[in-house]
Every structure is written in structure tokens, then in C-alpha cells.
């Protein structure tokens, strides 16, 4: 338990660094993949909805504290929903192939951003909603999903070759004995 906590905490810190360095290199027409959501997606699928919601809260609250203190709470709210849905639905939906995981990820990133912009608009009616949703959210969701698909495909390949044992499998998959 403690090992997992430390592992995910380090992964979280590392991802925040990668988000500001590597993600900028991967940027296409100003659209960057959301590596933090990708990590949260991975944790939620692997550990289930409780961990998903918990880490979603930690991620959202910490990032908002450091970078967007005036929007404190919005990030944690949207990420709690993201983590919970990923962990909860991940158990229920058949997610064997990397492509299916990518599609699922796309849906969740879109929901996350709708919540994020929606909550932001509640607090400040002057904020735009549809424009960023169309120009930022959907491309970001697509990009993150594509990247997620590639990552999961790579992990799957390595697992099949026997280099990685069990890391691909989510909680639901393990329970189902896949």
C-alpha cells in the first residue's frame, strides 16, 4: 500500500514535469496531450474507482493549488469524476484492446473538460464554453487518446513478449482472470 502510494506520487510528480517539457515538444498546432489524465486513467483502470477518485482529488487539488488557486476545487471535482468513472466503468466495459481503451479515454477526457469548463462557467459566466470545448478539448482528447492507445499497445506488446507481467491488466481484467 505504502509502496503504491509512493510509486504513484513519484509518477505524478514526474508526469507534471513531463507535461511541461515533453508535452510541449509533442505539441501539434498548440494541442498537447494531457499526460496527467493519461496517468490518472492508468491508475484508475489498474486500481479501481476508489483509487481513481482519491488520486483524482489529489491531482486536481495539487495542480490547482500550484497553478490556478482561484479555480481551486474545479480541478479536483473534474478529476475525481474522471478517476471514478475510469475505475468504475473500466470494470464494467470490456476493454481488452488498446483501441478500446483509447476510445474510452477519449470519452473520459471530453467529460472531464466539459465538467472543467462547465464548473468554471458557473463561477464566472463571462467565460467561454463552446469555443474552448471545440478548439481545445476535442483535439486534446483525441491526441491524448491516440497517445494512450500507443502506450497501451506498447505495454501489451511487451507483456505478450513476457517483459512486463500483469501491469497491463486492470483491476476488472484481473478479477475476470483475463
Amino acid at each position, binding site marked *: 500500500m505504502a509502496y503504491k502510494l509512493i510509486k504513484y506520487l513519484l509518477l505524478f510528480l514526474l508526469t507534471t514535469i513531463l507535461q511541461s517539457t515533453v508535452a510541449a515538444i509533442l505539441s501539434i498546432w498548440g494541442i498537447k496531450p494531457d499526460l496527467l489524465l493519461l496517468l490518472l486513467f492508468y491508475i484508475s483502470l489498474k486500481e479501481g*474507482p476508489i483509487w481513481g477518485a482519491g488520486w483524482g482529488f489529489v491531482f486536481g487539488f*495539487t495542480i490547482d493549488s500550484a497553478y490556478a488557486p482561484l479555480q481551486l476545487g474545479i480541478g479536483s471535482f473534474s478529476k475525481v469524476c474522471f478517476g471514478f468513472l475510469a475505475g468504475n466503468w473500466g470494470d464494467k466495459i470490456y476493454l481488452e484492446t488498446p483501441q478500446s481503451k483509447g476510445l474510452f479515454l477519449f470519452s473520459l477526457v471530453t467529460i472531464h473538460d466539459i465538467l472543467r469548463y462547465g464548473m468554471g462557467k458557473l463561477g464566472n459566466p463571462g467565460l467561454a464554453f463552446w469555443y474552448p470545448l471545440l478548439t481545445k478539448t476535442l483535439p486534446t482528447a483525441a491526441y491524448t487518446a491516440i497517445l494512450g492507445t500507443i502506450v497501451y499497445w506498447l505495454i501489451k506488446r511487451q507483456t505478450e513478449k513476457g517483459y512486463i507481467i500483469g501491469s497491463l491488466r486492470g483491476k476488472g481484467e484481473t478479477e475476470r482472470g483475463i
Partner: protein
Amino acid sequence: MQAPTRLTFAHLKYLTLAISLLFSLVVMGLNQRAKIQLAKAGSLAFIPAQRLLFYLVRMGEIYAENRKLRLMNTQLSLEVERTKGLKEENQRLRRMLNFKERAPFQLIPAEVIGRGPERATKSIIIDGGGDEGIEVNQPVISVDGLVGRVIKVGRKRSTVLLLLDPDCKASSLVERSKVYSIMECDGERCSLKGVPLYADVQEGDRVVTSGWGGIFPPGLKLGVVKKVFSENSALLKGVEVQPIVDFTSLKEVFILQGGPG
């Protein structure tokens, strides 16, 4: 037997969700000041930890970058030094060119490539010799004034005896009062010899070659009178001269052709 466990898990799942969302909503409802206070606490450990990890991750990269920058710094320092040298050389050559255009004689440019090792002899070696038409006893000048005369000529090299050497005497003239004399040096200091006690020589007077000696043409600058004093003689006075040429920093010189030498 499994039903209560599932129920507990389901409860726990939704309880976590409810608490997390509720806390998020409460935080959202706080005023700006409270949010900022809470954010300060929230990011207290995060930012230093992130920064530390950032440096750890980039340690190798930073080390390589540091090495590269050190190397670049050294190269740039060398380049700056070289440029500085080139700039000085350029200024000197410009002055020389300007001087060459104004000089009434034919001048052979030469570079100083060595200095005489003997402390007693004041001489330099230049990179011009017989091939360039240099001959013994030809006067050697710099942009500032008279340097000395050629005493030895090889095909590509020549030796120049500096004015500072006791053997390099020059017939001189105090420009303002037209007092003729001989300027000679003892290796360090120079003075005018045979100046009559009544002669009008003052400190600051410019001293040039008179052209009488048969080696140096008239009008070459020698120095400035530094000090006038009474010698232990009823007929002559002592005149110390500060040479106009800085012999320690000579780099380029000209050999005069077509003069009296």
C-alpha cells in the same frame, strides 16, 4: 458470505466519491482569500518536490549542458582575446599606413620577431633582410619616431641596434631653439651631449635628428627634453631626454631607404 463485502466495497466506493466531490464543492465555494490560503498549503510540498525531481531527472542533461557551456565559454574567451589582439593590430597597422603615406622616404615594412638576449646590447631582430633590399646602417623607424639602425643583414632577417644602445648615437637638434648636439643612451636613459651652458634648452622641448651624422635623415623624432641640469663643467649643461618610442612594445617597424644612410 460475499454480499456484505461487496456492499462494503460499493459503499466505500461511493463514499470516497461523495467525500471528494463534497470537499471540492466546498473549496469551490470559498472566497478568493481563503482559496489562496488553502492553495498555499496545498502546494507547500508539491512545488519543492516537483523542483527536486525536475533537477534529478535533468541531472545528466544539466551536467552535459554544463560541460558544453564551459567548453563554449573557453572557446569564446579565446576568441575574444584573439579579436582583441586583431583589433589592436588593426589600429597599429592603420597608424602605420597613414604614416607610410606621409613619409617622404621609401619605407620597407618589417615585423619584430625577436629581441636581443643580451642585457647590455639593445637590439631587435626583424623579418626582413637582403631579399627585401635592406642594407647595413639603414635607419629604422616606427610610427612614433626613430628606433635605431640596421647593423646586420641576412637574407630574410636583420638585426637592428636600438637607439637605447650606447653604440647608437644620433646627431640631434632641439626643434624650438635649433641647438645641435649628439643624443646617446646608456641602455636605459638618454641624454644630449655637448650642449653649451648658454644654449636655450628647456624641459618639454622636442628633439629630432639633425641629419648631420650621415646615417639618419633630418626631422626624425627622437624624444622630449625631460630634465635640464648643470653638469660638473663650466661650459656644458646636462640635458636628459625621454625617448619618444616605447621600445618595449615595438611590433612593426619601417626601414628607411633613400635617406642619407
